[in-house]
C-alpha cells in the first residue's frame, strides 16, 4: 500500500515537473518573464485605454480582472499545450502505451501550472493594489489567497478539455486560443457580468472562474467569509464538473486512439 502510494506520488511529481519544464523550456529568465507577463500585461493596458476611450471610467476593474485572469490563462494554455504538444513530439504513444496509472499522469500535468499561476497572481496583485492606492488594511488576506488558489485550480478543467481537443485536431490550439480570448468577455474580467447583454449572462454563469473572480473582487472590497461562501461553493462545484468532463473526454479519446492509431499523425 505504502509502496504503491509512493509510486503514485513519484509518477505524479515526475509528470508534473516534466510537463512544466517542457512547456517553459525558456532559455533565460528574461524570456521566461516576457512570455509569462508580456501578453497579459499589455493586453490589460490595451483594454484600459479602450475603456477610457469609450467612457468606461473604471480602470481598476479592468486591471484587477486581468490579473485575476492570469492563473486561469496559465492553467488553460499551459495544460492544453502540454497535452497537445505530446502529439507534436510524438511522445503520446509512449505515454499511452505505458502501464502508468492514468489519474496521476493526468493530474500531474496540472500541478506546476497551478502553482505557477498562483505565484504569478501573488506577484501581480499586490503591485496593482499599491498602484491604485487601495491598501491592504480592509482585506482578508487569507480569504483572498483561498480565492486565488481556487481560481488556479478550477480553470484546469477547461485546460484538460482543450488539451484533449488538441490531441485529436491539428488546429486544436486555435480553439484553445479562441476560448482563452472569449474569457476576456465572458467571466467578468473586463466587463461586469451583470452589464453584459442578457443572452451572454447565462453562459458566464456556467463557466468556471466567473464566481471565483467575483468573489475575489468582493474580498478586495472588504467582504468576509460569509459574504462570499456561496460564490466560492458554486465555483468549486462548477470547477469540479469541468475537471470531470476533461478527464472523461481524455479517457474516451485515449480509447478511441488505440483503435484508430490517430494520435501521433500530425
Amino acid at each position, binding site marked *: 500500500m505504502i509502496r504503491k502510494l509512493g509510486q503514485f506520488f513519484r509518477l505524479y511529481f515526475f509528470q508534473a515537473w516534466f510537463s512544466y519544464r517542457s512547456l517553459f523550456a525558456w532559455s533565460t529568465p528574461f524570456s521566461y518573464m516576457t*512570455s509569462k507577463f508580456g501578453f497579459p500585461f499589455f493586453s490589460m493596458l490595451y*483594454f484600459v485605454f*479602450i475603456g477610457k476611450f469609450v467612457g468606461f471610467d473604471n480602470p481598476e476593474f479592468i486591471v484587477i480582472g486581468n490579473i485575476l485572469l492570469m492563473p486561469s490563462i496559465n492553467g488553460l494554455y499551459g495544460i492544453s499545450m502540454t497535452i497537445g504538444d505530446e502529439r507534436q513530439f510524438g511522445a503520446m504513444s509512449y505515454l499511452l502505451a505505458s502501464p502508468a496509472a492514468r489519474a496521476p499522469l493526468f493530474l500531474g500535468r496540472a500541478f506546476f501550472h497551478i502553482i505557477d499561476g498562483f505565484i504569478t497572481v501573488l506577484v501581480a496583485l499586490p503591485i496593482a493594489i499599491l498602484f491604485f492606492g487601495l491598501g491592504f488594511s480592509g482585506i482578508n488576506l487569507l480569504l483572498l489567497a483561498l480565492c486565488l488558489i481556487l481560481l488556479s485550480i478550477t480553470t484546469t478543467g477547461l485546460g484538460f478539455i482543450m488539451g484533449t481537443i488538441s490531441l485529436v485536431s491539428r488546429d486544436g490550439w486555435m480553439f484553445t486560443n479562441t476560448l482563452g480570448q472569449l474569457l476576456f*468577455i465572458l467571466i467578468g474580467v473586463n466587463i461586469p457580468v451583470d452589464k453584459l447583454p442578457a443572452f451572454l449572462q447565462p453562459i458566464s454563469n456556467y463557466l468556471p472562474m466567473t464566481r471565483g473572480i467575483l468573489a475575489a473582487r468582493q474580498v478586495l472590497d472588504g467582504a468576509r467569509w460569509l459574504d462570499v461562501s456561496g460564490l466560492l461553493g458554486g465555483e468549486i462545484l462548477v470547477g469540479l464538473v469541468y475537471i470531470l468532463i476533461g478527464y472523461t473526454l481524455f479517457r474516451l479519446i485515449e480509447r478511441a486512439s488505440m483503435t484508430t492509431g490517430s494520435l501521433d499523425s500530425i
Partner: protein
Amino acid sequence: MGNFLRLALRQMDVQLRMRVLSLWSLGLFFTQPAIFSAVGMLLAHAAGNANPDLIYTVIGGGIMGMWSGLVFTSTFDIRADRREGTLELIVGSPTPLRRVVGFRSLLNILAGSTSMLAAVTAAVLIFDYSFAGINVPAVILSFALLLFGLWCMGIFLANLLAWSRLSGTFVDLLEMPIALLCGFMYPISVLPSWMQYISVVFPIRWSLQAMREAMRGTAANAELLSLWGISLGISLVFYLFSHWLDVKVHDHIRVTGELHSI
C-alpha cells in the same frame, strides 16, 4: 523579370497554402480582432455610451487583425522553416533569403487585408456605419501606405527572427505594445503623453492617422501630405535597415549553425 514574377507567385502560393490558409490565421485575422472590438463595444455599453466611434472600435479591430496576422505569420514562418529544416535549403539556394521573406510578407499583408475588409463590412452591416463625407482617394492612398509600412516592419521582424531564436520571445512581446502605442482602437490622445512619443518611430501610426482623418473627411490636404510623407519616410528607413540586417543575418546564422536547430 519573368523569373522574378514567377518566384513571387510561387512563394506567395506556397505561403498561402502552407501557412495562411489555416484555422490558426483565421483566428488571428478574424476572431481576435472581433473579440477586442466586442470588448470595446461592451465596455461602451456598460458605461452607458450607446454610440461608440465605429472608426476606432470596429474598423480599428481590422487593423489589429492585420497587425497580429503580420507579426505571427512573418515571424512564425521563419521559425517553422527552421523547425522543418527548410530554412537551410532556402538559404543554400541561389535566391537570397531577403527575397523569399519579402514575397511572403507581401502575401501576409494582403491576406491580412481581409481582416480590414471584414471589419468594415461588420461596421456597415451590423452597426450602420455610413461612408458620408469620406475622402476616398486619400483613404486609399493612406491604406496603401499603411500596407507598405506594415510590409517594411514585417520583413524587419522576419530578419530579426532569422537572426536568432531568442528574439522570438521579443517578437511575441511586440504584438500588443505596438497595437497599444499606435492607437489601433482609440486615438493616440487617449494615451498618457509620454507614451504618445514612443510610437512616433512606427510608420503605421502615421498612415493610420492619415487614414482616419481621410475617413472623416475633415483633414486639410497639407496635413494629410505631411502624415503620408512621415509614414513613407519611416517605412523606407525600416526597409533599408532590414536590408542591412539581412546581410548580417546571413553571416550570423552561418557562424552559429542556427539554421537547422530548433
